[in-house]
């Protein structure tokens, strides 16, 4: 493991609707020896609304955070949120065009001095710690838990700009959770859209798209969904009650952040993974984890069988 430090951008939802994601991400990284330094006085990346209005405005909002990260003297910018990551990637990529960059600089009045790279925390854990490295640190394996990993539409797509995992069939979360002992289902909707930021203006759209994801995961026998995106989590968990009545199906499927489950498997305490923040009760799913106790008495050496 590298002793490198990464500029950490939690994103707005990390202080509200996805506190548990932010906290469990920090705890997990600490346990895995990854050092995060908060971007000082960070601001919102503008999320989907900003790029819906203008690309230079969106890039300028991301560029301000990159400028803030320069105060730390760090080039590698990591965030748990795929939507923040997408905006940061797009800003870095579009600013390669000198005309675009000039417009962004005019908006921020803070031209960037360094070359920046952006990653998701998931990418960092998958590529730096690796599933094999993680497996060595597991204290409480998730044996008995059947999970569907749902990556959402933004994390890997399109591959030419996100540069991580397989764009249509990502496996990073599956491999990490497998290393933690969970059983992973081959979930066909892993990159389908959940309805994203349409939750507030068009709840019906989210009910339909997220409803399909929940329904399929249930019918495949999943005990829970696992996600890496605050917006997906909110649509699938917080809105699950709404969705149930809209699609007239009665599923109760907990929706964990992968950081919470990996944290659990590493033996991190509840106050670092905040499972109680989940709206759909995770206890029935967690009760399926088979506790395999190490045998108290060492096994008797096999008796030699006379020939």
């Amino acid at each position: 493991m590298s002793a490198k430090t990464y500029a950490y951008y939690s994103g707005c939802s990390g202080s509200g609707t996805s506190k548990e994601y932010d906290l469990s991400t920090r705890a997990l990284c600490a346990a895995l020896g990854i050092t995060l330094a908060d971007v000082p006085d960070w601001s919102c990346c503008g999320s989907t609304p900003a790029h819906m209005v203008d690309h230079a405005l969106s890039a300028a909002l991301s560029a301000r955070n990159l400028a803030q990260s320069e105060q730390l003297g760090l080039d590698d910018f990591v965030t748990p949120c795929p939507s923040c990551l997408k905006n940061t990637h797009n800003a870095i990529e579009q600013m390669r065009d000198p005309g675009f960059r000039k417009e962004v600089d005019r908006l921020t009045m803070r031209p960037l001095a360094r070359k920046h790279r952006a990653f998701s925390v998931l990418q960092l854990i998958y590529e730096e710690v690796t599933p094999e490295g993680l497996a060595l640190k597991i204290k409480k394996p998730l044996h008995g838990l059947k999970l569907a990993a749902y990556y959402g539409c933004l994390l890997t797509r399109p591959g030419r700009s996100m540069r991580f995992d397989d764009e249509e069939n990502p496996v990073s979360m599956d491999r990490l959770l497998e290393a933690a002992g969970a059983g992973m289902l081959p979930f066909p909707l892993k990159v389908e859209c959940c309805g994203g930021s349409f939750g507030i203006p068009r709840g019906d759209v989210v009910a339909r798209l997220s409803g399909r994801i929940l329904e399929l995961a249930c019918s495949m026998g999943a005990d829970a969904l696992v996600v890496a995106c605050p917006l997906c989590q909110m649509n699938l968990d917080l809105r699950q009650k709404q969705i149930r009545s809209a699609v007239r199906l009665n599923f109760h499927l907990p929706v964990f952040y992968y950081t919470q489950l990996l944290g659990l498997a590493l033996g991190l305490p509840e106050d670092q993974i905040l499972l109680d923040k989940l709206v759909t009760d995770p206890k029935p799913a967690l009760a399926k984890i088979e506790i395999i106790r190490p045998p108290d008495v060492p096994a008797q050496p096999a008796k030699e069988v006379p020939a």
Partner: protein
Amino acid sequence: MEHVQLGRGDTDFIRAVETESGQKVSRCYQCGNCTAGCPMSFTYDFTVSRIMRLIQLGQKNTVLSSKAVWMCASCESCSTRCPNHIEVARILDVCRHMSRRAGFGGARNVRLFADAFLQSVRWHGQSHELGLMAVYKLLSMRLFDDLTLAPDMLLKNKLPFKPHRIKGRDEVAGIFRRYAQGRGLHGGGKK
């Protein structure tokens, strides 16, 4: 399927879409891959591949007044699956920018939500869910939507009452101010 009365092609429009998106729309050969994977088609008036065709034909008003450019969720399925590597989602984004600048209302609530969100960022430097919901509800007059979510959010302590105002909020407001000024000067964000 809706029929479109084709107007005279507006070549300036085609050029503007190409410059602002950095994409060549003529590379689209109408295979329909983008439409096949589009999760939002059920809300569209024109499917995404038809929008691509309408752009090629320079049908500015039809494209900019379409529901499709406003209802696109930017999920990137189309950009991922286009055999010609066209950034289709970026093209739709750019059409949405043009539609907004040209004063087409678009899908009203989608636009109002984006406005409320950005207003929150402009005020505080970060988005504040409760505040932006209030602004959105007042703008859209959808006062009773989503009230069922509030108890769960409060119970889980996920809805901070007060916005977190960052120290650099004036700097962030400055980005919005210069953006609004620049828009007057050059008619919008440029690629």
